[in-house]
């Protein structure tokens, strides 16, 4: 009997709580709806004549779902958000729901998942190279030709070479880029001056610099082999193989590629990398360089934004390798991403124009100029940019470097794709210690590439 009473009481309490929950939810919904109506009314009042004009023009309210790689600590993130705000101010009927993040592997996986289940955004800034293959396979992007047939002014400020650079691997143009990048050797020039060293211009001078710095307790090269050895992989392959062989994906590992990757062991044995290069991350090694504990760092143009001492830091061409096949001044870089409009937005009559205007707002000459300046005015712009006054010595050295480039090649991952490239990257530490053979690693990656290309 006692049990029955207890269970009855419990059931009554639970039922009451459920009913109370329903009631409160209803109240909340009611109050939310009321407050939202009030907010809307207030917003409408504030918008005044402009909103009325839009309404007269027959524009339905549009919510644009956008995604970009301008998130986190990206120097472009501020400009991207500012342009979004200005855009919403100009087109009051458009609301942007933005979900920008740094482009790490988790983010790429979530983008792929969204596209596969039909949850893709209306506009996305994404890769144009082989990294995009997975998403491109869903055939959910509108081509540039289709857009320009209806909106001839679309991407009109963008340089032809830039549009060519972001042509997808299937030869179709879909993306509109903003800025590109280059990879170069950042040097703490004050450290070179302190030890009477010339900036490295070839393999021998690089070796001399490494030896001298090592003897004086300075880390010669700031690099985390366990985290981001990518830049060194690219330049070792480029300079060992030469431009033509570098941009060709072979069936089996060529001797030159093997020799290129084996340079990791040579440099490691010389003590060129930090003692803890196997365990630290890229942010940490970057800090070693910025704090003048390390003399050189091979990195992308985006690294310039984090350098504080822009007067004593310069960027130069990769010095080269022994018996190199690439010509001096060969550079890794390009434009690898751009804004895409998805078919989901294109096929929605209300969203079509909004998406086009959104991409134009981010890829116009004025917008790209702002992106370019945000990255220290040293990246590769997709439009004709106006030079700025008061460039720092670092920016000037970058300008010299890019102007003097004898060739520009896109990095290997843009051809191999993410998964085969990851095989190489994950084995760099082992190659550098000699516990894995560069030949085996490259063949494993190339075999995977062949499988994926089938």
């Amino acid at each position, binding site marked *: 009997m006692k*049990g029955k009473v207890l269970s009855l009481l419990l059931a009554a309490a639970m039922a009451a709580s459920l009913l109370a929950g329903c009631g409160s939810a209803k109240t909340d919904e009611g109050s939310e709806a009321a407050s939202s109506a009030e907010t809307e009314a207030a917003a409408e009042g504030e918008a005044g004549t402009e909103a009325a004009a839009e309404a007269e023009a027959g524009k339905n309210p549009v919510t644009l779902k956008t995604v970009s790689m301008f998130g986190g600590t990206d120097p472009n993130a501020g400009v991207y958000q500012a342009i979004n705000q200005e855009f919403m101010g100009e087109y009051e009927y458009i609301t942007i729901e933005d979900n920008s993040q740094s482009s790490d592997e988790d983010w790429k*996986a979530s983008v792929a998942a969204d596209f596969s*289940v039909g949850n893709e955004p209306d506009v996305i800034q994404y890769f144009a190279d082989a990294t995009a293959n*997975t998403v491109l*396979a869903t055939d959910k992007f509108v081509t540039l030709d289709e857009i320009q047939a209806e909106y001839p002014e679309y991407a009109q400020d963008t340089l032809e070479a830039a549009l060519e650079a972001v042509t997808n691997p299937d030869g179709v143009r879909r993306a509109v880029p903003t800025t590109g990048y280059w990879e170069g050797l950042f040097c703490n020039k004050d450290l070179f001056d302190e030890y009477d060293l010339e900036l490295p211009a070839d393999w021998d001078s690089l070796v001399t610099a490494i030896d001298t710095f090592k003897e004086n307790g300075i880390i010669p090269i700031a690099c985390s082999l366990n985290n981001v050895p990518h830049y060194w992989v690219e330049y070792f392959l480029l300079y060992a193989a030469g431009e033509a062989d570098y941009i060709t994906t072979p069936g089996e590992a060529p001797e030159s590629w093997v020799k290129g990757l084996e340079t990791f062991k040579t440099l490691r044995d010389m003590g060129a990398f930090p003692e803890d290069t*196997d*365990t630290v991350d890229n942010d940490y090694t970057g800090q070693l360089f910025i704090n003048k504990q390390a003399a050189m760092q091979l990195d992308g143009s985006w690294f310039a934004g984090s350098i504080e001492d822009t007067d004593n830091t310069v960027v130069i061409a990769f010095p080269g390798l022994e018996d190199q096949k690439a010509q001096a001044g060969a550079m890794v870089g390009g434009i690898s991403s751009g804004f895409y409009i998805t078919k989901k937005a294109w096929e929605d009559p209300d969203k079509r124009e909004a998406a086009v205007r959104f991409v134009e707002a981010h890829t116009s000459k004025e917008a790209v100029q702002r992106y370019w300046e945000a990255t220290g005015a040293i990246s590769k712009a997709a439009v004709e940019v106006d030079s700025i006054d008061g460039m720092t010595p670092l920016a000037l050295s970058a300008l010299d470097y890019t102007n003097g480039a004898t060739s520009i090649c896109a990095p290997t991952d843009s051809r191999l794709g993410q*998964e085969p490239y990851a095989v190489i990257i994950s084995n760099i*530490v*082992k190659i550098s210690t000699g516990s894995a053979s560069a030949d085996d690693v490259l063949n494993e990656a190339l075999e995977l590439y062949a499988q994926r290309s089938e």
Partner: protein
Amino acid sequence: MLYKRRWPLLIFLVPGLLFMFIFLYVPFIENIKNSFYDMTAIVEMPGTKWKFIGLRNYRKLITDPDVGTALFNSLKMMVLTILFEVGIAFILAVLVSQVKKLQQLFRTLYFFPVVISATALGLLFKLFYNYNGGMLNQILEYFGKEPVNWLSTELAFTMICIPTLWSYIGFYFVILLTGLSDISDDLYEAAAIDGCNRFKQVFYITLPMMKPVFFTSVTLAVTGALKVFDLPWVMVPNGAPQGVTHFLGTYMYQTTFSLSNFDYGSTLAILIVVLGIVVSRMMRFLTKDRKGGE
């Protein structure tokens, strides 16, 4: 029998079961299926078809040296958790149980690391171990010694184990202390009258009376060791240096999310689940009789 009609109970049980089914069992079955396919992306994209590869991933599992390292490290961690997590926790619990004043303070202090996130602890210890300017090397430098690479291939596993084990001692400490408090004071008093000193009391009263609590702690520690992931991943991602600090969890994560090898990652996940079942069954078997024919 408390309830005559059982069907109302189902109303309360079904939502939880459905939740488990949708978010645990369906993905797990999907995971088993995925391990037999060559996954080109994390999900099968429209317009693509994954190739059936049979047991290729399972054959690779047997020959992969990194799996060997990860498995060995996970097994070593199991032994270490019993010795150090449960062992030290027991010593601390016995000592604290003897203290009448400040017992609550000790409880809080020892339990404190458990509530700190593993990410924060990992970053903290990473700063201790840093070669350039890390706390340990600063101390060495102060005494005129050469800096040490605390995360070199020789030292890394030990240095990772220290915070991993330390951070969970408090958890077992609380369990064991609760077990100790359940032992009647009468037993100790009777033993004391019989001339048994404190040390002997621990051996002849505390240890035998604590067996069930011990076995529960050991089972939790051993199965928990299989799930070690967050702290080592924060301190030394990708099994750094040179893969020597890989555990099954970290290797599975690296394979799946860093190398985008989703099908092989699925195979590793199955290995972890199977091993978890085997270990927990073994623990159940080993402690069965001692728990009084449970």
